[in-house]
């Protein structure tokens, strides 16, 4: 695993359209639920514990399905077999494309809100398109051209030569930074203080990513399914607005 490759995929400036989504912050701000640093912190913690954990789990499981069990190594343990060609093109070992479709279905089952499903697929499509240009070996899967975003993260991570834990990290961290930077723009909060919140959540990202990698082979129904009712409700309200800054 190449650390630089992880940074490339996790970078908010990756041209995959992430900046167009607020992760539910725009709706929460409009509803008055998020209005200052303290309520933003609460929002980020709750979102990470629900939608964030689900995204981490599905990104890790997708990456595992595409890279195969033979490439997994103990967390931070044995030498990485892929370390000799960091960030370069990959051949896919045990492509289990049907599992990828099942995982994509699993996110449908965990996303009651039609608006959130559409936003997730729009981001998945954009990320997959970017990944196909950046890492030409990006595999096509049975999840099609517009998979849910966490599945697309898993596919891109596999193509980039990353492992399930890194895929999970990209998914959960991206959710936090996306929401945090949207809050800065919407509420004019102190960007240093907001990024201090992001830094405070870093250990939780690590914990969720390690857990996601540990459970990457579980049956889809047994993967995390934490529900955030107000994210669903907010997304449905947001989708009816005529004027908005963010797509979701």
């Amino acid at each position, binding site marked *: 695993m190449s650390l630089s490759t992880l940074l490339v995929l996790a970078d908010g400036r990756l041209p995959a359209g992430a900046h167009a989504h607020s992760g*539910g912050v725009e709706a*929460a701000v409009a*509803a008055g*639920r*998020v209005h200052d640093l303290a*309520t933003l912190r*609460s*929002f*980020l*913690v*709750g*979102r990470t*514990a*629900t*939608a964030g954990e689900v995204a981490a789990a599905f990104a890790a499981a997708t990456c595992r399905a595409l890279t195969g069990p033979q490439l997994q190594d103990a967390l931070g343990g044995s030498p990485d077999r892929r370390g000799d060609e960091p960030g370069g093109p990959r051949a896919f070992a045990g492509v289990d494309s049907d599992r990828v479709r099942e995982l994509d*279905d*699993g996110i*449908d*089952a*965990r*996303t*009651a*809100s*039609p*608006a959130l*499903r559409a936003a997730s697929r729009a981001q998945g499509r954009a990320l997959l398109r970017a990944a196909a240009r950046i890492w030409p070996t990006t595999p096509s899967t049975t999840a099609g051209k517009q998979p849910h975003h966490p599945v697309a993260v898993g596919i891109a991570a596999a193509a980039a030569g990353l492992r399930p834990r890194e895929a999970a990290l990209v998914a959960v961290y991206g959710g936090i930074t996306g929401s945090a930077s949207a809050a800065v723009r919407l509420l004019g909060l102190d960007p240093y203080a907001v990024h201090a919140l992001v830094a405070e959540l870093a250990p939780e990202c690590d914990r969720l990513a390690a857990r996601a990698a540990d459970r990457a082979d579980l049956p*889809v*129904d047994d993967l*995390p*399914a*934490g*529900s*955030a*009712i*107000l*994210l*669903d*409700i907010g997304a*449905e*309200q947001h*989708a*009816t607005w005529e004027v908005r800054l963010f797509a979701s």
Partner: protein
Amino acid sequence: MRAEARVVAEADGRGGTRLSTVYGEPPLLPRRTGHRHAGHAEVHLVGGAAGPLGGDELRIHVEVGPDAHLVVRTVAASLAQPSHPPRHSTLTITATVHGTLAWLPEPTVAVTGCDHTTRSIVDLCDGAELLWREELIAGRHDEPSGDLRAATTVRCGGRTILRHDLAIGPSADAGPATVGGARAVGTLLVVGPHAPTRPTATSTGATMPLANAPAALISATASDAAGLRRALDGDTVNTWAADPSAKPGNCRKN
């Protein structure tokens, strides 16, 4: 305490539904209720003991045969209560539905200190219809909530169409992304031709058509149980199996 209840409903061949099995052990006592002339069979679960209490392992299995129509209710809210020393309690509900099932229990209240999980696994055959209501209340009046989780899996023709975990209490998040400090949270799942096909939302509730089935999930938060029930039932429009003679305790207007 370990206890089990089983209810099996079958079509009686004359347009009605008969109950071929109504079995229960305290505290899960199913009793046939409702009108004989109604097209459906109705069962109320009567609490034969307090609970669920810490350490309880309770199981309910429901089967609804082809063309049968079963409505299941409870006579009162369930109070999930702690034990000393503290132990986890579980209620596992499994249902296999060919015909129509309306699972419309009263809410589960998380008494301070409880640690309870209700796990529901519903298997719908093609063409089956379902109403499935889950309501979680954070403590009795003015008390801090215990830990209460509802983990739900609903499959339609073998494909999972809904998978969600709701949680309230000190171990769960109650912030502005999840429940916003609401004391009552819940969902009503509608599967079948009655399911709403257009999404709608208010500031505390939404009706959301699901991705892979003729189904919709209605989710809501409220400050109390009555408000939650109004949001989920939509003044009974959503619970088409609502019994017009239901007692006022069911929070209905009619």
